[in-house]
Protein backbone atom coordinates (compact mmCIF):
# COMPACT_ATOMS: atom_id res chain seq x y z
CA UNK A 1 0.00 0.00 0.00
CA UNK A 2 2.80 2.44 0.75
CA UNK A 3 4.07 1.93 -2.79
CA UNK A 4 0.65 2.79 -4.23
CA UNK A 5 0.70 5.95 -2.11
CA UNK A 6 4.08 6.89 -3.59
CA UNK A 7 2.53 6.52 -7.06
CA UNK A 8 -0.34 8.75 -5.93
CA UNK A 9 2.13 11.26 -4.53
CA UNK A 10 3.36 11.97 -8.04
CA UNK A 11 -0.12 13.04 -9.06
CA UNK A 12 -0.54 15.17 -5.93
CA UNK A 13 2.66 17.05 -6.81
CA UNK A 14 1.35 17.50 -10.33
CA UNK A 15 -2.19 18.50 -9.27
CA UNK A 16 -0.83 21.01 -6.76
CA UNK A 17 0.43 22.94 -9.75
CA UNK A 18 -2.72 22.80 -11.85
CA UNK A 19 -5.61 22.37 -9.40
CA UNK A 20 -7.08 25.78 -10.14
CA UNK A 21 -7.40 24.98 -13.83
CA UNK A 22 -8.86 21.53 -13.06
CA UNK A 23 -11.43 23.00 -10.69
CA UNK A 24 -12.34 25.85 -13.01
CA UNK A 25 -12.82 23.76 -16.12
CA UNK A 26 -14.71 21.12 -14.14
CA UNK A 27 -17.11 23.57 -12.52
CA UNK A 28 -17.72 26.06 -15.31
CA UNK A 29 -19.52 23.51 -17.47
CA UNK A 30 -21.98 22.29 -14.81
CA UNK A 31 -22.70 25.88 -13.78
CA UNK A 32 -23.60 26.69 -17.38
CA UNK A 33 -25.89 23.66 -17.50
CA UNK A 34 -27.34 24.71 -14.17
CA UNK A 35 -28.23 28.17 -15.44
CA UNK A 36 -29.28 27.08 -18.91
CA UNK A 37 -31.22 23.93 -18.13
CA UNK A 38 -31.92 24.11 -14.43
CA UNK A 39 -33.28 27.64 -14.40
CA UNK A 40 -34.21 28.11 -18.07
CA UNK A 41 -35.94 24.81 -18.78
CA UNK A 42 -36.98 24.55 -15.15
CA UNK A 43 -39.16 27.67 -15.40
CA UNK A 44 -41.18 25.93 -18.15
CA UNK A 45 -41.34 22.52 -16.51
CA UNK A 46 -42.51 23.79 -13.16
CA UNK A 47 -45.61 25.30 -14.83
CA UNK A 48 -46.79 21.80 -15.83
CA UNK A 49 -49.80 20.69 -13.77
CA UNK A 50 -48.38 17.40 -12.48
CA UNK A 51 -44.65 18.05 -12.91
CA UNK A 52 -44.04 18.13 -9.15
CA UNK A 53 -45.54 14.64 -8.84
CA UNK A 54 -43.33 13.24 -11.57
CA UNK A 55 -40.23 14.85 -10.09
CA UNK A 56 -40.94 13.56 -6.60
CA UNK A 57 -42.23 16.80 -5.17
CA UNK A 58 -39.22 19.01 -5.91
CA UNK A 59 -38.54 21.86 -8.32
CA UNK A 60 -36.99 21.02 -11.67
CA UNK A 61 -33.96 23.06 -10.68
CA UNK A 62 -33.38 20.88 -7.59
CA UNK A 63 -34.09 17.72 -9.61
CA UNK A 64 -31.58 18.59 -12.29
CA UNK A 65 -28.91 20.30 -10.16
CA UNK A 66 -28.46 17.29 -7.88
CA UNK A 67 -27.79 15.06 -10.90
CA UNK A 68 -24.77 17.22 -11.74
CA UNK A 69 -23.12 15.95 -8.56
CA UNK A 70 -22.87 12.57 -10.32
CA UNK A 71 -22.50 13.57 -13.98
CA UNK A 72 -19.58 15.97 -13.43
CA UNK A 73 -17.28 13.39 -11.79
CA UNK A 74 -18.33 10.96 -14.53
CA UNK A 75 -16.92 13.29 -17.18
CA UNK A 76 -13.80 14.11 -15.20
CA UNK A 77 -13.02 10.60 -13.96
CA UNK A 78 -13.78 9.06 -17.35
CA UNK A 79 -11.57 11.45 -19.28
CA UNK A 80 -8.70 11.14 -16.79
CA UNK A 81 -8.70 7.38 -17.44
CA UNK A 82 -8.30 7.95 -21.19
CA UNK A 83 -5.63 10.37 -22.51
CA UNK A 84 -3.72 11.11 -19.28
CA UNK A 85 -3.62 7.37 -18.53
CA UNK A 86 -2.45 6.36 -22.00
CA UNK A 87 0.35 8.89 -21.48
CA UNK A 88 1.74 6.69 -18.70
CA UNK A 89 2.00 3.77 -21.12
CA UNK A 90 3.24 5.37 -24.31
CA UNK A 91 4.05 9.08 -24.31
CA UNK A 92 5.79 10.06 -21.09
CA UNK A 93 6.04 6.34 -20.20
CA UNK A 94 5.79 7.29 -16.54
CA UNK A 95 4.31 3.89 -15.61
CA UNK A 96 7.23 2.12 -17.23
CA UNK A 97 9.63 4.30 -15.28
CA UNK A 98 7.83 3.26 -12.08
CA UNK A 99 8.16 -0.43 -12.95
CA UNK A 100 11.97 -0.04 -12.91
CA UNK A 101 11.70 0.65 -9.17
CA UNK A 102 10.15 -1.45 -6.37
CA UNK A 103 6.72 -0.30 -7.66
CA UNK A 104 4.62 -3.14 -9.15
CA UNK A 105 1.83 -2.93 -11.73
CA UNK A 106 -0.71 -3.43 -8.92
CA UNK A 107 0.73 -0.43 -7.09
CA UNK A 108 0.33 1.56 -10.31
CA UNK A 109 -3.36 0.55 -10.57
CA UNK A 110 -4.18 1.47 -6.97
CA UNK A 111 -2.19 4.68 -7.33
CA UNK A 112 -4.29 5.59 -10.38
CA UNK A 113 -7.50 4.78 -8.47
CA UNK A 114 -6.44 7.35 -5.86
CA UNK A 115 -5.58 9.77 -8.63
CA UNK A 116 -9.00 9.49 -10.31
CA UNK A 117 -10.67 9.74 -6.90
CA UNK A 118 -8.77 12.94 -6.16
CA UNK A 119 -9.94 14.53 -9.43
CA UNK A 120 -13.50 13.48 -8.67
CA UNK A 121 -13.35 14.87 -5.13
CA UNK A 122 -12.09 18.22 -6.37
CA UNK A 123 -14.80 18.53 -9.03
CA UNK A 124 -17.73 17.09 -7.03
CA UNK A 125 -16.83 19.38 -4.15
CA UNK A 126 -16.75 22.32 -6.57
CA UNK A 127 -20.28 21.51 -7.75
CA UNK A 128 -21.46 20.99 -4.16
CA UNK A 129 -20.23 24.45 -3.17
CA UNK A 130 -22.18 25.97 -6.06
CA UNK A 131 -25.35 24.06 -5.09
CA UNK A 132 -25.00 25.24 -1.50
CA UNK A 133 -25.71 28.77 -2.77
CA UNK A 134 -29.27 27.90 -3.81
CA UNK A 135 -32.14 27.43 -1.35
CA UNK A 136 -33.54 24.45 -3.27
CA UNK A 137 -30.36 22.41 -2.95
CA UNK A 138 -28.73 23.67 0.26
CA UNK A 139 -28.38 20.59 2.47
CA UNK A 140 -25.93 18.71 4.67
CA UNK A 141 -26.55 15.85 2.28
CA UNK A 142 -24.25 17.60 -0.22
CA UNK A 143 -21.29 16.16 1.70
CA UNK A 144 -22.58 12.65 1.24
CA UNK A 145 -23.35 13.38 -2.39
CA UNK A 146 -19.68 14.30 -2.97
CA UNK A 147 -18.72 10.80 -1.84
CA UNK A 148 -21.32 9.32 -4.18
CA UNK A 149 -19.93 11.48 -6.96
CA UNK A 150 -16.46 10.04 -6.36
CA UNK A 151 -17.87 6.52 -6.46
CA UNK A 152 -19.68 7.33 -9.71
CA UNK A 153 -16.54 8.81 -11.26
CA UNK A 154 -14.55 5.70 -10.32
CA UNK A 155 -17.27 3.43 -11.73
CA UNK A 156 -16.34 4.96 -15.10
CA UNK A 157 -12.65 5.58 -14.60
CA UNK A 158 -11.60 2.08 -13.56
CA UNK A 159 -13.20 0.16 -16.48
CA UNK A 160 -11.97 2.89 -18.87
CA UNK A 161 -8.42 2.61 -17.50
CA UNK A 162 -8.50 -1.16 -18.01
CA UNK A 163 -9.42 -0.51 -21.65
CA UNK A 164 -6.79 2.21 -22.06
CA UNK A 165 -4.07 -0.20 -20.91
CA UNK A 166 -4.79 -2.33 -23.98
CA UNK A 167 -4.59 0.55 -26.49
CA UNK A 168 -1.69 1.52 -28.76
CA UNK A 169 -3.23 4.89 -29.60
CA UNK A 170 -6.07 7.23 -28.72
CA UNK A 171 -8.21 6.75 -31.82
CA UNK A 172 -11.02 4.99 -29.93
CA UNK A 173 -11.30 7.61 -27.20
CA UNK A 174 -13.47 10.24 -28.94
CA UNK A 175 -15.98 7.49 -29.79
CA UNK A 176 -16.12 6.42 -26.15
CA UNK A 177 -17.03 9.96 -25.17
CA UNK A 178 -19.47 10.49 -28.04
CA UNK A 179 -21.26 7.14 -27.98
CA UNK A 180 -20.69 6.07 -24.38
CA UNK A 181 -20.57 9.03 -22.05
CA UNK A 182 -22.83 11.53 -23.81
CA UNK A 183 -25.80 9.13 -24.33
CA UNK A 184 -25.52 8.10 -20.71
CA UNK A 185 -25.62 11.74 -19.71
CA UNK A 186 -28.83 12.15 -21.74
CA UNK A 187 -30.65 8.91 -20.85
CA UNK A 188 -29.71 8.14 -17.24
CA UNK A 189 -32.22 10.24 -15.40
CA UNK A 190 -30.23 13.44 -15.13
CA UNK A 191 -32.65 15.55 -17.19
CA UNK A 192 -35.90 13.69 -16.42
CA UNK A 193 -36.99 10.63 -14.45
CA UNK A 194 -36.14 7.44 -16.34
CA UNK A 195 -39.81 6.43 -15.94
CA UNK A 196 -40.45 8.92 -18.76
CA UNK A 197 -38.38 6.78 -21.14
CA UNK A 198 -40.14 4.31 -23.47
CA UNK A 199 -40.65 1.07 -21.50
CA UNK A 200 -38.11 -0.81 -23.59
CA UNK A 201 -35.36 1.69 -22.78
CA UNK A 202 -35.95 1.95 -19.07
CA UNK A 203 -34.01 -1.23 -18.13
CA UNK A 204 -31.04 0.13 -20.10
CA UNK A 205 -30.82 3.01 -17.66
CA UNK A 206 -30.86 0.57 -14.74
CA UNK A 207 -27.63 -1.12 -15.76
CA UNK A 208 -25.70 2.08 -16.42
CA UNK A 209 -23.65 3.25 -13.46
CA UNK A 210 -24.70 6.85 -13.98
CA UNK A 211 -28.38 6.29 -13.15
CA UNK A 212 -27.45 4.77 -9.80
CA UNK A 213 -25.13 7.66 -9.04
CA UNK A 214 -27.77 10.23 -10.00
CA UNK A 215 -30.45 8.57 -7.86
CA UNK A 216 -28.11 8.42 -4.87
CA UNK A 217 -27.03 12.05 -5.15
CA UNK A 218 -30.62 13.15 -5.47
CA UNK A 219 -31.61 11.06 -2.47
CA UNK A 220 -28.72 12.39 -0.39
CA UNK A 221 -29.59 16.02 -1.01
CA UNK A 222 -33.38 15.98 -1.45
CA UNK A 223 -34.36 12.88 0.56
CA UNK A 224 -37.04 10.43 -0.52
CA UNK A 225 -34.76 7.45 -1.15
CA UNK A 226 -35.36 4.25 0.81
CA UNK A 227 -32.51 2.48 2.56
CA UNK A 228 -32.91 -0.68 0.50
CA UNK A 229 -32.74 1.14 -2.81
CA UNK A 230 -29.80 3.22 -1.62
CA UNK A 231 -27.89 0.06 -0.71
CA UNK A 232 -28.67 -1.41 -4.12
CA UNK A 233 -27.39 1.71 -5.90
CA UNK A 234 -24.17 1.69 -3.87
CA UNK A 235 -23.73 -2.02 -4.57
CA UNK A 236 -24.01 -1.51 -8.33
CA UNK A 237 -21.51 1.35 -8.31
CA UNK A 238 -19.11 -0.64 -6.15
CA UNK A 239 -19.42 -3.59 -8.52
CA UNK A 240 -18.30 -1.36 -11.41
CA UNK A 241 -15.37 -0.02 -9.37
CA UNK A 242 -14.25 -3.42 -8.12
CA UNK A 243 -14.75 -5.10 -11.51
CA UNK A 244 -12.91 -2.29 -13.29
CA UNK A 245 -10.05 -2.43 -10.80
CA UNK A 246 -9.72 -6.20 -11.18
CA UNK A 247 -9.64 -5.77 -14.97
CA UNK A 248 -6.94 -3.09 -14.57
CA UNK A 249 -4.83 -5.49 -12.51
CA UNK A 250 -4.80 -7.84 -15.49
CA UNK A 251 -4.40 -5.35 -18.34
CA UNK A 252 -1.80 -3.14 -16.61
CA UNK A 253 0.34 -6.17 -15.74
CA UNK A 254 0.06 -7.49 -19.28
CA UNK A 255 0.98 -4.12 -20.76
CA UNK A 256 3.85 -3.27 -18.44
CA UNK A 257 5.52 -6.69 -18.04
CA UNK A 258 6.05 -8.38 -21.39
Amino acid at each position, binding site marked *: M*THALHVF*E*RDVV*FLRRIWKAVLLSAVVQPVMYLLGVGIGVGSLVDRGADSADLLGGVSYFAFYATALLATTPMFVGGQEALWPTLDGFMW*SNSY*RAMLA*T*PISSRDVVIGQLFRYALRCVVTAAGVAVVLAIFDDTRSWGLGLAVLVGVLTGLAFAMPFAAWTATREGDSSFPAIIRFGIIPMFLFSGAFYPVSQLPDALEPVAWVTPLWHGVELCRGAVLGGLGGGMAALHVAVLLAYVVGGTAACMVTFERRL*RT
Partner: protein
Amino acid sequence: MVGAQDPVVARQLVKKFDDFVAVDQIDVHVAPGEAFGFLGPNGAGKTSTMRMIGCISPVSSGELRIFGLDPEADGRKIRARMGVVPQLDQLDNELTVMENLVIYGRYFDLSRRDARAKAAELLDFVQLTERADSKVEPLSGGQQRRVSIARSLINDPDLLLLDEPTTGLDPQARHVLWDRLYMLKERGATQIITTHFMDEAEQLCDRLVVMDAGKIVAEGSPQGLIAEHVRREVLEVRFGHGRNEEQVEKLDGIGGRIEALPDRLLIYADDGEAALSELHRREVVPESSLIRRSSLEDVFLKLTGRTLVE
Protein backbone atom coordinates in the same frame (compact mmCIF):
# COMPACT_ATOMS: atom_id res chain seq x y z
CA MET B 1 34.56 -17.95 -10.77
CA VAL B 2 30.82 -17.46 -10.50
CA GLY B 3 29.75 -16.23 -7.05
CA ALA B 4 26.28 -17.05 -5.73
CA GLN B 5 25.48 -13.35 -5.09
CA ASP B 6 26.95 -12.03 -8.34
CA PRO B 7 25.01 -9.27 -10.10
CA VAL B 8 23.94 -11.41 -13.05
CA VAL B 9 24.13 -15.12 -13.74
CA ALA B 10 22.15 -16.42 -16.73
CA ARG B 11 22.12 -19.95 -18.09
CA GLN B 12 20.41 -20.98 -21.32
CA LEU B 13 18.30 -17.83 -21.05
CA VAL B 14 15.47 -17.58 -23.61
CA LYS B 15 12.92 -14.88 -24.40
CA LYS B 16 10.11 -15.68 -26.80
CA PHE B 17 7.32 -13.46 -28.10
CA ASP B 18 4.78 -15.92 -29.50
CA ASP B 19 6.82 -17.69 -32.19
CA PHE B 20 9.60 -15.13 -32.36
CA VAL B 21 12.73 -16.00 -30.38
CA ALA B 22 14.28 -12.69 -29.29
CA VAL B 23 16.91 -14.19 -26.99
CA ASP B 24 18.13 -17.68 -27.79
CA GLN B 25 19.80 -19.69 -25.03
CA ILE B 26 22.44 -17.26 -23.88
CA ASP B 27 24.85 -17.71 -20.97
CA VAL B 28 25.96 -14.52 -19.23
CA HIS B 29 27.92 -13.82 -16.09
CA VAL B 30 28.55 -10.32 -14.79
CA ALA B 31 30.94 -9.99 -11.85
CA PRO B 32 30.71 -7.30 -9.14
CA GLY B 33 32.24 -3.97 -10.18
CA GLU B 34 32.44 -4.97 -13.81
CA ALA B 35 31.36 -2.84 -16.77
CA PHE B 36 29.74 -5.34 -19.07
CA GLY B 37 28.48 -4.70 -22.58
CA PHE B 38 25.87 -6.18 -24.89
CA LEU B 39 26.87 -5.24 -28.40
CA GLY B 40 24.89 -5.89 -31.53
CA PRO B 41 22.70 -4.42 -34.25
CA ASN B 42 19.08 -3.43 -33.71
CA GLY B 43 16.96 -6.51 -33.11
CA ALA B 44 19.85 -8.63 -31.81
CA GLY B 45 18.10 -9.24 -28.48
CA LYS B 46 20.03 -6.74 -26.35
CA THR B 47 17.03 -4.84 -25.02
CA SER B 48 15.02 -8.03 -24.41
CA THR B 49 17.90 -9.33 -22.32
CA MET B 50 18.12 -6.06 -20.42
CA ARG B 51 14.39 -6.12 -19.70
CA MET B 52 14.66 -9.62 -18.26
CA ILE B 53 17.57 -8.54 -16.08
CA GLY B 54 15.52 -5.50 -15.06
CA CYS B 55 12.75 -7.84 -13.84
CA ILE B 56 10.10 -6.27 -16.08
CA SER B 57 10.02 -9.06 -18.64
CA PRO B 58 9.31 -12.65 -17.55
CA VAL B 59 11.91 -15.25 -18.55
CA SER B 60 10.57 -17.70 -21.17
CA SER B 61 12.97 -20.48 -20.22
CA GLY B 62 16.41 -21.03 -18.77
CA GLU B 63 17.71 -19.66 -15.52
CA LEU B 64 18.33 -16.07 -14.44
CA ARG B 65 19.63 -14.95 -11.06
CA ILE B 66 20.23 -11.33 -10.08
CA PHE B 67 22.27 -10.97 -6.86
CA GLY B 68 21.42 -14.64 -6.42
CA LEU B 69 17.66 -13.89 -6.43
CA ASP B 70 14.91 -15.05 -8.77
CA PRO B 71 13.40 -12.11 -10.77
CA GLU B 72 9.95 -13.70 -10.75
CA ALA B 73 9.77 -14.23 -6.99
CA ASP B 74 11.91 -11.35 -5.75
CA GLY B 75 11.49 -8.70 -8.46
CA ARG B 76 10.70 -5.94 -5.97
CA LYS B 77 13.75 -6.73 -3.84
CA ILE B 78 16.03 -6.86 -6.88
CA ARG B 79 14.72 -3.65 -8.41
CA ALA B 80 15.34 -1.87 -5.10
CA ARG B 81 19.08 -2.45 -5.66
CA MET B 82 19.08 -1.52 -9.34
CA GLY B 83 19.20 1.68 -11.39
CA VAL B 84 17.82 1.75 -14.93
CA VAL B 85 18.54 4.26 -17.69
CA PRO B 86 16.06 3.35 -20.43
CA GLN B 87 16.67 3.72 -24.14
CA LEU B 88 14.13 6.54 -24.39
CA ASP B 89 13.98 8.99 -21.51
CA GLN B 90 10.93 8.37 -19.35
CA LEU B 91 11.00 11.64 -17.47
CA ASP B 92 7.91 13.54 -16.38
CA ASN B 93 7.86 16.53 -18.69
CA GLU B 94 5.26 18.30 -16.57
CA LEU B 95 7.48 18.27 -13.49
CA THR B 96 10.74 20.02 -12.66
CA VAL B 97 14.11 18.27 -12.75
CA MET B 98 14.20 18.27 -8.94
CA GLU B 99 10.64 16.91 -8.63
CA ASN B 100 11.48 14.14 -11.09
CA LEU B 101 14.34 12.99 -8.88
CA VAL B 102 12.57 13.37 -5.54
CA ILE B 103 9.45 11.51 -6.67
CA TYR B 104 11.61 8.73 -8.06
CA GLY B 105 13.40 8.53 -4.70
CA ARG B 106 10.01 8.13 -3.03
CA TYR B 107 9.35 5.05 -5.20
CA PHE B 108 12.39 3.56 -3.44
CA ASP B 109 10.90 4.42 -0.04
CA LEU B 110 13.36 7.24 0.65
CA SER B 111 12.03 9.89 3.02
CA ARG B 112 11.30 13.23 1.38
CA ARG B 113 14.22 14.82 3.18
CA ASP B 114 16.67 12.08 2.13
CA ALA B 115 15.36 12.12 -1.42
CA ARG B 116 15.87 15.88 -1.68
CA ALA B 117 19.39 15.70 -0.27
CA LYS B 118 20.33 12.84 -2.58
CA ALA B 119 18.76 14.60 -5.58
CA ALA B 120 20.78 17.75 -4.93
CA GLU B 121 23.97 15.70 -4.70
CA LEU B 122 23.20 13.87 -7.95
CA LEU B 123 22.32 17.04 -9.86
CA ASP B 124 25.71 18.33 -8.85
CA PHE B 125 27.29 15.09 -10.11
CA VAL B 126 25.67 15.43 -13.55
CA GLN B 127 26.34 19.19 -13.58
CA LEU B 128 22.71 20.28 -13.71
CA THR B 129 22.36 22.01 -10.32
CA GLU B 130 21.40 25.31 -11.92
CA ARG B 131 18.55 23.58 -13.83
CA ALA B 132 17.02 21.96 -10.73
CA ASP B 133 13.85 24.06 -10.86
CA SER B 134 13.50 24.05 -14.61
CA LYS B 135 10.90 21.80 -16.18
CA VAL B 136 12.31 18.84 -18.10
CA GLU B 137 10.88 19.75 -21.48
CA PRO B 138 13.13 22.70 -22.44
CA LEU B 139 16.32 20.75 -21.62
CA SER B 140 18.51 19.50 -24.46
CA GLY B 141 18.70 15.78 -25.29
CA GLY B 142 22.05 15.46 -23.53
CA GLN B 143 20.78 17.25 -20.43
CA GLN B 144 17.66 15.07 -20.29
CA ARG B 145 19.79 11.95 -20.52
CA ARG B 146 21.90 13.26 -17.63
CA VAL B 147 18.71 13.77 -15.61
CA SER B 148 17.81 10.14 -16.41
CA ILE B 149 21.22 9.00 -15.19
CA ALA B 150 20.96 11.09 -12.02
CA ARG B 151 17.49 9.65 -11.43
CA SER B 152 18.72 6.09 -11.87
CA LEU B 153 21.30 6.69 -9.11
CA ILE B 154 18.83 7.96 -6.51
CA ASN B 155 18.86 4.63 -4.63
CA ASP B 156 22.66 4.16 -4.75
CA PRO B 157 22.23 1.12 -6.99
CA ASP B 158 24.58 -1.86 -6.83
CA LEU B 159 23.79 -2.53 -10.49
CA LEU B 160 23.20 0.06 -13.19
CA LEU B 161 21.48 -0.89 -16.47
CA LEU B 162 22.12 1.49 -19.36
CA ASP B 163 20.21 0.77 -22.56
CA GLU B 164 21.89 2.60 -25.44
CA PRO B 165 22.81 5.51 -23.20
CA THR B 166 24.15 7.80 -25.92
CA THR B 167 21.90 7.04 -28.88
CA GLY B 168 20.71 10.32 -30.36
CA LEU B 169 23.23 12.50 -28.56
CA ASP B 170 25.76 14.79 -30.22
CA PRO B 171 29.48 13.90 -29.82
CA GLN B 172 30.08 16.46 -27.11
CA ALA B 173 27.16 15.25 -25.01
CA ARG B 174 28.36 11.66 -25.47
CA HIS B 175 31.76 12.49 -24.06
CA VAL B 176 30.30 14.23 -21.01
CA LEU B 177 28.19 11.15 -20.39
CA TRP B 178 31.09 8.73 -20.86
CA ASP B 179 33.09 10.74 -18.36
CA ARG B 180 30.32 10.44 -15.72
CA LEU B 181 29.92 6.72 -16.35
CA TYR B 182 33.63 6.24 -15.96
CA MET B 183 33.53 8.05 -12.61
CA LEU B 184 30.72 5.74 -11.48
CA LYS B 185 32.76 2.75 -12.48
CA GLU B 186 35.69 4.01 -10.44
CA ARG B 187 33.36 4.14 -7.46
CA GLY B 188 32.70 0.43 -7.90
CA ALA B 189 29.16 0.33 -9.37
CA THR B 190 28.51 -2.65 -11.65
CA GLN B 191 27.30 -1.47 -15.05
CA ILE B 192 25.58 -3.27 -17.88
CA ILE B 193 25.51 -1.32 -21.12
CA THR B 194 23.88 -2.08 -24.44
CA THR B 195 25.07 -0.24 -27.48
CA HIS B 196 25.49 -0.51 -31.20
CA PHE B 197 28.36 1.95 -31.13
CA MET B 198 31.71 0.20 -31.27
CA ASP B 199 33.67 3.11 -29.87
CA GLU B 200 31.30 3.32 -26.93
CA ALA B 201 31.79 -0.35 -26.09
CA GLU B 202 35.57 0.05 -26.35
CA GLN B 203 35.48 3.11 -24.09
CA LEU B 204 33.15 1.82 -21.41
CA CYS B 205 33.25 -1.96 -21.21
CA ASP B 206 35.71 -4.23 -19.42
CA ARG B 207 34.12 -7.20 -21.06
CA LEU B 208 31.37 -7.67 -23.60
CA VAL B 209 29.39 -10.12 -25.62
CA VAL B 210 28.54 -9.63 -29.26
CA MET B 211 24.93 -10.58 -30.00
CA ASP B 212 23.36 -11.38 -33.33
CA ALA B 213 19.86 -12.74 -33.95
CA GLY B 214 19.35 -13.57 -30.27
CA LYS B 215 22.59 -15.50 -29.84
CA ILE B 216 25.98 -14.63 -28.39
CA VAL B 217 28.53 -14.89 -31.21
CA ALA B 218 31.64 -13.75 -29.32
CA GLU B 219 32.73 -12.85 -25.83
CA GLY B 220 35.77 -11.15 -24.33
CA SER B 221 37.42 -7.81 -23.58
CA PRO B 222 37.35 -5.26 -26.44
CA GLN B 223 41.13 -5.62 -26.98
CA GLY B 224 40.97 -9.39 -26.60
CA LEU B 225 38.22 -9.70 -29.21
CA ILE B 226 40.14 -7.55 -31.66
CA ALA B 227 43.33 -9.53 -31.11
CA GLU B 228 41.48 -12.81 -31.46
CA HIS B 229 39.43 -12.06 -34.56
CA VAL B 230 41.21 -9.42 -36.62
CA ARG B 231 44.71 -8.01 -37.26
CA ARG B 232 45.90 -4.88 -35.49
CA GLU B 233 45.32 -2.42 -38.33
CA VAL B 234 43.01 -1.94 -41.25
CA LEU B 235 43.88 -0.48 -44.61
CA GLU B 236 40.75 0.89 -46.26
CA VAL B 237 41.05 1.46 -49.99
CA ARG B 238 38.48 2.74 -52.48
CA PHE B 239 38.58 2.07 -56.21
CA GLY B 240 35.24 3.64 -57.06
CA HIS B 241 31.83 2.09 -56.80
CA GLY B 242 31.49 -1.39 -58.35
CA ARG B 243 35.20 -1.69 -59.08
CA ASN B 244 36.36 -2.86 -55.66
CA GLU B 245 35.61 -6.56 -55.94
CA GLU B 246 37.62 -7.04 -59.13
CA GLN B 247 40.80 -5.77 -57.41
CA VAL B 248 40.80 -8.53 -54.80
CA GLU B 249 42.72 -11.12 -56.85
CA LYS B 250 45.56 -8.64 -57.47
CA LEU B 251 46.00 -8.25 -53.73
CA ASP B 252 46.69 -11.90 -52.97
CA GLY B 253 49.09 -12.30 -50.05
CA ILE B 254 48.75 -8.76 -48.73
CA GLY B 255 47.71 -8.61 -45.06
CA GLY B 256 45.65 -11.29 -43.34
CA ARG B 257 42.12 -11.11 -44.66
CA ILE B 258 40.34 -8.92 -47.19
CA GLU B 259 36.74 -7.85 -46.85
CA ALA B 260 35.07 -6.51 -50.01
CA LEU B 261 32.27 -4.01 -49.31
CA PRO B 262 30.36 -2.30 -52.12
CA ASP B 263 32.12 1.02 -51.56
CA ARG B 264 35.55 -0.07 -50.33
CA LEU B 265 37.99 -2.91 -49.56
CA LEU B 266 39.14 -3.58 -46.01
CA ILE B 267 42.59 -5.14 -45.78
CA TYR B 268 43.41 -6.43 -42.31
CA ALA B 269 47.14 -6.28 -41.59
CA ASP B 270 49.55 -6.01 -38.68
CA ASP B 271 51.24 -3.13 -40.46
CA GLY B 272 48.87 -1.05 -42.60
CA GLU B 273 51.65 1.19 -43.93
CA ALA B 274 53.59 -1.82 -45.26
CA ALA B 275 50.45 -3.18 -46.90
CA LEU B 276 49.85 0.12 -48.67
CA SER B 277 53.47 0.18 -49.93
CA GLU B 278 52.99 -3.32 -51.30
CA LEU B 279 49.85 -2.13 -53.15
CA HIS B 280 51.81 0.65 -54.79
CA ARG B 281 54.69 -1.73 -55.63
CA ARG B 282 52.17 -3.89 -57.53
CA GLU B 283 50.90 -0.73 -59.23
CA VAL B 284 47.39 -1.16 -57.83
CA VAL B 285 46.55 2.46 -57.14
CA PRO B 286 43.31 3.19 -55.26
CA GLU B 287 41.39 6.47 -55.53
CA SER B 288 41.85 6.94 -51.82
CA SER B 289 43.29 5.05 -48.88
CA LEU B 290 43.11 5.20 -45.10
CA ILE B 291 44.94 3.31 -42.36
CA ARG B 292 43.23 2.94 -38.98
CA ARG B 293 43.34 0.69 -35.94
CA SER B 294 41.01 -2.29 -36.01
CA SER B 295 37.86 -1.87 -33.97
CA LEU B 296 35.01 -3.98 -32.67
CA GLU B 297 33.15 -3.00 -35.81
CA ASP B 298 35.63 -5.13 -37.73
CA VAL B 299 35.14 -8.01 -35.30
CA PHE B 300 31.41 -7.82 -35.86
CA LEU B 301 31.84 -7.66 -39.62
CA LYS B 302 34.02 -10.75 -39.55
CA LEU B 303 31.66 -12.69 -37.30
CA THR B 304 28.41 -11.87 -39.08
CA GLY B 305 29.40 -10.64 -42.52
CA ARG B 306 27.41 -7.47 -41.89
CA THR B 307 28.20 -3.98 -40.68
CA LEU B 308 26.58 -2.94 -37.41
CA VAL B 309 24.81 0.27 -38.26
CA GLU B 310 23.24 -0.09 -41.66
